[in-house]
Structure formats: C-alpha cells, structure tokens
C-alpha cells in the first residue's frame, strides 16, 4: 500500500484530472459534513438530557407518603400517612445489604433566613450527612452536615450557592450566623453547588435532629431517600433497584394499611429504572443519527463508485495501454482503489474539519433545555475516518475489478 512510486503515479493522475476529482470529492465531503453535524447534535442532546437528569444521583430510591385516596380494610380515604424515625430505621435494617447512602428528611417549605440586613425565603431541609451524595451536591466551601452535628442536634447549616449569592454577596459565609424565621440562630458551615442549578441551590440543609426540634416535629419525617449499591452490570442493578422499591412499597402498604392500587398515598420512586429508560432513549437517538449519517455516506459512496466507473470506462484505452506495457492486473486494481480511497479520504477530511469547525463555532452558544454544547469527540472522529477509508475502498472495488478485467486488445483496437 505504501509505495511512493505508485502514489506519485496517482497524484499525477489526480492532478491532471482536477474537475473529475473535485466533483467526486464534493459528494463525499458533504456526506461526512452531514454525518458530523448529526453526530454533534446527537451528543448535544445526550449532554442536555444527562445534565437535566443527573441533577441527583441516578441510583436513587425516594420514599414519601401523602393522603390516602381509597378506602381499605374499613378505613376511610383521606387519611394522612405520617412516617417516623422508626419507619426509617426499620427500612435501614431490612435493606442494609442493598443500601449505599441513606437519609431521611424533614422539610419546611418557606423558611425566612436573615443575615444582617439581607433576607430571603428558602426551603429548609433537615437531613442526614449522606444527603450530600444522594443529592449529587458538591461542596464549594466548608463542610457538609456531619454525624456529630446530628447526634448533638447542632444549629449548623449548609447553604446553597444561590443563597450565598443572595445573602453574602461580598462576604465569606463560613462561620457567620444566620437567623431562621426571626428566632433561631444557625452557623453556616458550608456552601454547596448542585448540577440542578439555582432552584436546587436555594435550600438550607440542617441536621435532621435539629429540624425535628425547631419545627416541633417530634419523630416525624417527610421522606426517605436511598441510593442502591451498583453492581457492574447495569441491567442487574436496575433489576435489584426495582425489586427493592417494590418491596419497600409493600412494607409501607402493610404497615399503613393502604390499598394496593392507591398510587397517591405511598410513592416509591426508583430513579435507576428511569435512568435506564432515558439512557435507552439516548442510545436510540444516537443510533438513529448514525443510521441517517451512514445512509448519507452510502449515498456518497455510491456516487464515488459511479464516478469511478465512468472514470474507468473513460480510461479503458489508457488501462489497455498500461496493460500492454506490462501493468499487472493487481497494479491496475490498486491504481483505481488507491485513487478512490485517496479522494474519499481527503474529501472526507475536508468534510470532517468543516463539520467540526461549525460545531466548535456554533456549539457553545447552543444551550437549550435538551441540547447542550454539541461536539464531536476524538473517538467519533477516528471512527468517521475509518468509515471513510473503508467506504473509499468499497466505492473503488467494483470499478477496480472492472478495470482489471479490461482486455488490452479490445481496448486498443483501432475503430
């Protein structure tokens, strides 16, 4: 394949047939261009969906109770179901093998928070230390709620980045005292950021024990959240997670005597199953885009193949001369194949670079809900290049065979 003499021979031919080469290149270049743009947007959709979705840990199970909507075993609908610390501890014990992180939560929807003369209204959530991992929050300053904060019911809080911006625009919040609902002082120990953005970052996290005290909630909790241990096999993890959700649902229905079909009263949300669906969707989108892109390339390849066929026909006499002068059939095949691969590859690279260039220019400014920063990664580019060379070879194959079969006497017969 790498034979400098042969390359020179091919450059000669290409050089002296510029228009033909240009026309051939055009179809391939546009095919690759379309493929690259499509793949870019497929990755953009993937980025967008992932960002939307991965605000919280994807292997999360979330348990909450509300009001019954159906009568069951002589009980009237409209009962309020209230989970307590006991329920949380029972579940922890029962599922300790499967649980990775765990927390219960007690929340107060509108809490007024003051720092000096600044103030704002935020969600207050009493949680365990593991909440940080379940929520996918990253600490940008200080520390998160700790185990001893919980044991000693300390009045400490971790504020979201949006709260910091609101209340401490020019000050380091760590160690500062904030006033909650005009009567309780908390010390800020940390600031977190959350992939979910400013809404998720407008919350104050405090130890659950403290929350239950200051809001006079006794042992009540609003929600329980777990993450499940992941096994290497995603499908297996999804199955385990689903089984555990189902089992927790059963436990609570038994405990609270809730009708099996009352979907409002008890909710156990299994994020992993959702994740599987969404990843499946992303895969489908990607597959569709590849399919369209490959289709475009096939059209390009057929185009190149056709042009090469015409070229071979046009060059019948020349190929006859070459054979009379001693060209081996294999040399004729290589001549056509190499020209085809070369043109396809060069044209493809041009398409690739233009496509990547457009994505680089336009990509960063695209920031819609479900499309984010469309780019083409290195692997994809390499794959495209391999596709190019292979398609060049495919496009050249039939014309090359035809060229090799040209009989010199027939080609050279004087009409």
């Amino acid at each position, binding site marked *: 394949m790498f034979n400098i003499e042969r390359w020179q021979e091919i450059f000669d031919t290409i050089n*002296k047939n510029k228009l033909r080469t240009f026309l051939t290149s055009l179809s391939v270049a546009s095919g690759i261009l379309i493929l690259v743009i499509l793949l870019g947007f497929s990755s953009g959709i993937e980025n967008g969906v992932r960002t939307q979705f991965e605000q919280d840990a994807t292997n999360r199970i979330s348990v909450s109770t509300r009001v019954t909507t159906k009568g069951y075993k002589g009980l009237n609908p409209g009962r309020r179901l209230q989970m307590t610390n006991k329920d949380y501890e029972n579940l922890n014990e029962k599922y300790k093998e499967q649980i990775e992180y765990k927390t219960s939560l007690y929340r107060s929807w509108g809490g007024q928070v003051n720092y000096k003369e600044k103030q704002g209204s935020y969600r207050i959530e009493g949680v365990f230390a593991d909440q940080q991992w379940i929520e996918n929050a990253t600490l940008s300053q200080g520390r998160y709620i700790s185990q001893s904060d919980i044991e000693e019911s300390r009045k400490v809080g971790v504020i979201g980045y949006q709260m910091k911006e609101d209340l401490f625009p020019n000050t380091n919040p760590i160690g500062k005292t904030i006033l909650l609902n005009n009567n309780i002082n908390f010390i800020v120990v940390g600031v977190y950021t959350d992939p979910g953005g400013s809404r998720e970052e407008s919350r104050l996290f405090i130890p659950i024990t403290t929350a239950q005290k200051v809001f006079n909630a006794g042992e009540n909790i609003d929600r329980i959240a777990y993450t499940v241990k992941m096994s290497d096999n995603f499908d297996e993890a999804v199955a385990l997670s689903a089984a555990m959700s189902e089992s927790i649902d059963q436990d609570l229905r038994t405990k609270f005597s809730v009708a099996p079909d009352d979907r409002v009263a008890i909710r156990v949300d299994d994020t992993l199953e959702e994740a599987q669906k969404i990843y499946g969707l992303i895969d489908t989108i990607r597959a569709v885009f590849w399919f369209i892109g490959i289709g475009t390339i096939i059209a390009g390849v057929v185009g190149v193949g056709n042009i090469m066929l015409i070229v071979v026909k046009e060059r019948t006499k020349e190929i006859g001369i070459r054979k009379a002068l001693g*060209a081996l059939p294999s040399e004729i095949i290589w001549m056509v194949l190499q020209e085809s691969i070369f043109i396809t590859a060069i044209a493809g690279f041009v398409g690739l670079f233009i496509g990547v260039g457009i994505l680089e220019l336009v990509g960063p400014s695209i920031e819609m809900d479900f499309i984010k920063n469309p780019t083409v990664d290195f692997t994809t580019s390499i794959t495209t290049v391999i596709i190019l060379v292979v398609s060049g070879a495919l496009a050249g194959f039939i014309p090359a065979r035809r060229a090799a079969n040209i009989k010199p*006497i027939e080609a*050279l017969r004087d009409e």
Partner: protein
Amino acid sequence: MIEITDLHKSYITGNTSLHVLKGIDFSVKEGELVSIMGSSGSGKSTLLNILGMLDEADSGTYTLDNTPIKNLNEKIAAQYRNKFLGFIFQSFNLISYKNAIDNVALPLYYQKVGRKERDEKAMHYLEKVGLADWADHLPNQLSGGQKQRVAIARALASDPKVLLADEPTGALDTKTSYEVMDLIQGINEEGRTILVVTHEPDIAEMTKRIVNLKDGRIIDDRLVNQIKAKAHV
C-alpha cells in the same frame, strides 16, 4: 528468437466461427527485420497480437527467446510483455495527459525502476528518436510523426527482445512514414529484432524479409534487398 508452429486461431461471434489463422509455421532469428504483409482482414494483426501475448492461439506452439509461451494467465502475460516486448501501434496509443518523457518512462515504472533512473533512461530514448527538446510536451502538442517517435522511444525504453509494430506508418503521410522507417531501420541496425505489420508494399520493401499472409496462411516468405528509407527522406 521467435518460433511458432501450426498456429490456429478462430473468433467466435454469436454462432458463427471465423477461422482467422489456419496453421502458421514461422520463425524469426535474432536481429531480423521482418514485415508481415497481406490484405485487410488476412489475419496480420491477429498474428501479431498472439506474438505480443495480447491474445492467445487456439492451438500450436509458440516459443519466444527459448521460453515456451503457454498457459498464460494475465499476470504472467503482463510480466512477459514487460520483459520481452515493445509495442508500436498505428494510432500511437500515448497516454494523453502524460507528457512525452512520462509516456516513455511508463514501461520502466512497471519494471519497478526508480523515478530518477526512469527519467534518465526515458530522456536517453527521446534523444535517440530526436525529440529531447519535446520531452515536456503533451501528445496533442506533437505532430503524428513525432507521436510515433515518442511511441517508438517508449517501446525501446524497457529494452525489449522484440519490437512489434502494427501498421506503424498507417496514420502517417509518405514522407513521415519514411522518416519513421528510417528510425526503425536504425534500431534494427543496432541488433534489435523487429516485426512490422503493413499492407503497404513500399514499407515492406524497407524491411529485410517479407512474409505474405492470405486467408490465414503464409503464402510467401522471402528475403529482400532492403531499401534504405534514408534515400527517400
């Protein structure tokens, strides 16, 4: 140099078979300059194509430079052509987008000769046919006689045992024909074996031996007193 016995060749088109060569026995010694004469359709080109391994006989034997030529596949035929033979055609058959020197160098490319040596040799043969100054010209910038000279230079480039020329002067006027024949005689003087197919008696008289074909048979094979083309230029 060339030895053929009882050579037969038929062309089958549809369901009619045309017996073109009907048992040719013929030999050529090294250094000969032979013309093959005959009217149009008598099988001259067919014979030359078989000698040139561009076509295969149906039966008979063919030996070239002590090498039996049989069971040719395309690859072997190509190698033999490249090694033993140089072709000169009536319509020149130069590659239109290659200049004179690149045309001459092409057989050397298929002999895997490096570019530099190729160009040197090609230039040498262009000088020999008197076209050194035209090396960079494309075929369509050359006259008919010049094109045929380039073709002769190309045929010589691979230093073949035998030159096969099919109506080399068929597309040229008389004066140019004689110039080309002068060149061919000169090459023969250097010892090279040459076969020329022609239907023009004056051209045949400029070779050393005339073989007459009629209806696929040799009806006459005689040595002649060669007429020097130079005298008529």
